[in-house]
């Protein structure tokens, strides 16, 4: 009899599991089809901006130098990324530009551009393209034969894009872009005497008493703003630090209020719990918006936003940890004649410290990431730098730099919090 019922229930179980095994993937697939339609993923291929992707990728590992001739007066300017901060002093330039009667730009691989009243571009395997920009247009002439598709020309504009670089002529300006591997001027800008010095020369200069000057030139690099970036990282960590530990300090007494075994008053307990729910429910995003109205952008706003959200989370976790404490230890302390405060100090705190510390340190690490995001919204720390660099849409090498720094920062905090957790919890096991 029991065997039969057991068998029946087993068969029923199998049947249910079989249906589940097919239904679950089916439901998930159906949901993805819905998402596919709702998010218009089919139309995504039209929206992808391939040009943007190409700029982004090439910008990450290379930079371009602009060599520009003003066609009306013949002056030549050379600037890295076309920025004033990266401009070479008049009459100087990288070694692939020779200044003689005419400025000659060697783009490498046999591609040579010569400036002057008449500008020419030798393309190996094709011939010499020349142009005489003036009032009547760019007056371009090409070698005989079919025009390759990398040349675009009209009356007032000539553009040649080859692997070696880009050559543009308009009536007023002739411009050449040359792409070079690496991040431009990462260590020293052009106005620093240390620009272009090899590592060996730098080390020997540092030993001959110029270490301070070298550091100063690096630290105040206007292109990459190393000192400001370092401060931004510090600000981000500061937000996480103040937010997390501030929240822990506020949440600890509130946690006692919300714990059943420490607060006999039901109403008080209920109120404390609703406060935690409210703090957690009004998300960090909304707290950030509200606080930035009062305090303006900056690290303090971010720290307070983290503090408010985490007070809710910590309060909930602390009260749960407090409800799970072992009463025996408290009784033991009480039996020695300890007063209530001493009972908490020696009976409760040693029991919950390892749990609380490990949670707090875990949150500290995860809040470094949140601080980056909050910084992007309120305007503080490395998050602000990142959004600014992305919004300008051209400094992708800086975006890459910030991303690398953020990843390193988060990983360092992860390691630090793990180390502290092991260290503190182990040393606390012996009691106080």
């Amino acid at each position: 009899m029991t065997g039969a019922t057991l068998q029946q229930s087993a068969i029923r179980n199998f049947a249910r599991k079989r249906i589940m095994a097919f239904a679950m993937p089916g439901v998930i697939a159906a949901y993805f089809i819905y998402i596919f339609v709702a998010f218009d993923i089919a139309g995504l291929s039209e929206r992808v901006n391939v040009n943007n992707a190409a700029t982004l990728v090439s910008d990450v590992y290379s930079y371009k130098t602009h060599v520009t001739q003003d066609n009306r007066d013949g002056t030549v300017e050379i600037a890295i990324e076309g920025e004033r901060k990266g401009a070479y002093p008049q009459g100087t330039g990288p070694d692939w530009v020779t200044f003689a009667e005419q400025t000659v730009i060697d783009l490498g691989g046999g591609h040579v551009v010569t400036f002057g009243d008449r500008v020419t571009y030798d393309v190996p395997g094709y011939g010499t393209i020349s142009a005489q920009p003036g009032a009547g247009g760019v007056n371009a002439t090409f070698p005989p034969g079919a025009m390759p598709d990398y040349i675009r020309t009209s009356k007032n504009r000539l553009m040649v894009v080859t692997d070696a670089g880009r050559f543009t002529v308009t009536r007023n300006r002739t411009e050449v872009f040359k792409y070079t591997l690496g991040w431009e001027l990462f260590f020293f800008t052009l106005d620093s005497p240390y620009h272009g010095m090899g590592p060996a020369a730098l080390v020997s200069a540092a030993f001959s008493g110029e270490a301070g000057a070298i550091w100063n030139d690096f630290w105040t690099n206007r292109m990459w703003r190393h000192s400001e970036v370092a401060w931004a990282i510090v600000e981000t960590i500061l937000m996480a630090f103040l937010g997390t530990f501030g929240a822990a300090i506020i949440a600890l007494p509130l946690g006692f209020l919300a714990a059943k075994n420490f607060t006999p008053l039901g109403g008080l307990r209920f109120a404390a719990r609703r406060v935690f729910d409210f703090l957690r429910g009004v998300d960090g995003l909304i707290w950030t918006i509200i606080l930035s109205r009062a305090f303006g952008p900056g690290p303090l706003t971010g720290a307070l936003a983290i503090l408010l959200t985490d007070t809710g989370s910590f309060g909930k976790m602390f009260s749960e940890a407090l409800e799970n404490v072992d009463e025996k230890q408290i009784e033991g302390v009480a039996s020695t004649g300890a007063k209530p405060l001493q009972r908490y100090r020696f009976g409760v705190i040693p029991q919950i410290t390892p749990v609380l510390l490990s949670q707090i340190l875990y949150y500290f690490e995860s809040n470094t990431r949140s601080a980056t995001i909050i910084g992007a919204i309120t305007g503080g720390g490395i998050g602000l730098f990142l959004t600014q660099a992305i919004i300008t849409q051209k400094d992708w090498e800086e975006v890459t730099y910030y991303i690398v720094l953020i990843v390193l920062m988060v990983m360092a905090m992860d390691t630090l919090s793990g180390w502290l957790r092991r260290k503190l919890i182990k040393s606390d096991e012996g009691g106080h």
Partner: protein
Amino acid sequence: MTDISEATARGPDIRDAYLAQMRAKRVMNMILLIIFVALLIAGFRTADGRNAGGFWNGLPNILDFPADVIGEAVERAHLMPGYLVEYFPSLIETINIAAASTLLGGIFGLVMSLLTTRGLAPVTWLVGPLRRVLDILRAIPEIVIALILIYLLGGGPVPAMIAIALHTVGALGKLFSEVNENASLKPVEGLASVGANWTQRMWLGVVPQVAPNYLSYALLRFEINIRASAILGFVGAGGIGYDLRNTMSWGQGKFDEAAAIFVLLFLTIVVVDQLSSALRNRLTHGARISEAHP
């Protein structure tokens, strides 16, 4: 006998040594505490100094904005139901972003976790490198990937979904692999003995053991992802966050709509939190019952 008498003779020494050790420890703890408090105060002062508005100047104004919002919301309370209906589709989009990215992240996290658990991974030398990949996925904040994808793909829910899904793969992959480590290898060996391949061994031998824990972590992640998806909307990735930024930028006089969005967002987060915590309780509770009656 001699040992004992020696130990008694050394008694005071031991006590002194113990007391000295305790004193040293107490002093050490005191020093740590002082350093911590000093760091906290110095940190607060630095943050205060670098903030646009100071803490003490801003503190009295902290309720101004909520008061404005609530005031306008109460003043035009009759419009509120309309706004709630108007912004409901955006809320659905935000929830969909979170759900789709949690699902995607869960599926890929499952695969990654099986590939990075020692003892289960089919390719042992890949365990280390894949773990580093998970570390990096977890370390990059969603907003970074989202902003880059918005630049490439334009605004909308897809960049947010991909960004959150990538982060979720990193987070769940690690948690899942910790769960896998506690799974019993007996079913896996049994399946191997009847000639099951790796996929079958994992799908039939490991996953049924750990599914409740997986689900519980995935639900917790879903809660987190709803918040993340609202935040990403705020930087231009669709959903209710995007509407919130727009209504905020209209400024005073339009805060009633912002209030409606606040209410929607708050309710969603609270409801999802409660539901997921109830479900998670049932999942772990259910697991305990099946352990008690094998």
